[in-house]
């Protein structure tokens, strides 16, 4: 005999699916807003989206061009905060040695899970890189791609055991170096335009993306290869996305590897009194 609680749960589930299905069929539950553009979106569409505008962002993904171009310094500070967070998390376990000998038995899960995971391991980094290099065209970007890539390392730890991951050469020093390389690339891109502009005696801004009439040093919006059509790379956006991807994927993978160490290794290395 179903009690009242079960009945209410089932009814709410059915209601949610019915509402979602109705929204899917009729393209929305109701008219969302006034069809006229509000003033803020009018400003954005006139500047960021508009190729004839001086403030053109060179990217159909307005969010990416806002966060890396218009408020790029803010994003650099966010990346720095993430870097410091990784460093401070590793400081707690500063004396931990991550070697194949102290990472437990390398047994992993059964052969069924391993076989399926081998197929998935091809897909996850491919999707992560695709999210990253399409970050200036579609929603996504470096942080999202890096987080997606770190899912692969997390899955690898849980399926193939931490011992195998460490034995394959994912050491602390290597991942930290890759992480630092990504952050240095972000800094290099940020400082490249004012540096070159000051060498040429022109005006240049920190984190400048495209060239402006009053500051004529910038990264190219389009790159033409051997084929006739040119590729939209949106200036610094794709470079910054790739640098952020490298930094975030290495940093999050290192955090996951450190946190999945056996407890006794963490206690010995962290100097925690038992």
């Amino acid at each position, binding site marked *: 005999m179903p009690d009242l609680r*079960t009945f209410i749960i*089932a009814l709410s589930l*059915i209601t949610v*699916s019915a509402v979602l299905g109705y929204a899917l069929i009729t393209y929305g539950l109701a008219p969302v807003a006034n069809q006229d553009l509000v003033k803020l979106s009018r400003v954005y569409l006139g500047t960021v989206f508009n190729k004839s505008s001086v403030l053109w962002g060179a990217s159909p993904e307005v969010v990416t061009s806002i966060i890396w171009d218009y408020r790029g310094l803010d994003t650099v500070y966010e990346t720095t905060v993430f870097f410091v967070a990784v460093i401070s998390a590793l400081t707690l376990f500063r004396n931990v040695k991550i070697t194949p000998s102290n990472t437990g038995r390398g047994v992993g*899960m059964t052969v*069924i*899970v391993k076989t*399926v995971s081998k*197929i*998935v391991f091809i897909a996850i980094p491919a999707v992560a890189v695709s999210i990253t290099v399409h970050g200036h065209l579609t929603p996504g970007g470096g942080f999202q791609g890096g987080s997606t890539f770190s899912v692969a390392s997390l899955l690898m730890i849980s399926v193939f055991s931490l011992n195998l991951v460490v034995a394959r050469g994912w050491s602390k020093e290597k991942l930290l170096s890759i992480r630092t390389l990504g952050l240095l690339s972000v800094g290099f891109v940020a400082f490249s335009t004012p540096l070159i502009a000051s060498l040429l005696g022109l005006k240049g801004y920190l984190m400048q993306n495209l060239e402006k009439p009053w500051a004529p040093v910038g990264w190219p919006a389009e790159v033409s290869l051997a084929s006739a059509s040119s590729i939209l790379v949106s200036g610094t956006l794709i470079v910054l996305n790739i640098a952020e991807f490298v930094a975030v994927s290495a940093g999050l993978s290192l955090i996951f590897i450190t946190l999945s160490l056996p407890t006794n290794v963490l206690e010995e290395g962290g100097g925690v009194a038992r």
Partner: protein
Amino acid sequence: MVIDPYVLTEVLTTLLLMGALIGGILDVIAALGMIRFKDFYLRLHALTVGVIGGSFYPLILLGLYSMIKLPYPSNYYVGGIALTTAFFILITAPAGSHAIARAAHRSKHVPKPAVVDRLREDRESGVMN
């Protein structure tokens, strides 16, 4: 008899959408099973009904639907992503439920009316770990 291609397309897409609707019904059934079934392994059955019946078949049908119905550049994009996702759901769902069931058995969760447990016997006698 000549069949109008427009009518054929409409009938085909309506059938595909109705099939996708069956997937939604299977999802509701799986949710009810997750609440109502007695023990862990029976609920695992409801879980896989929800994954395969509620995600895999509707994704294939919606992928075909979008390949037929949507305008040119986006039909292969949406349809291809739907079919790729369906493939990955198909291969990961059994592995996931297998891993969950293995974890439950290793943590010595046995349903009440269990009479025979050969896996436990094999494990205790050391045939497999």
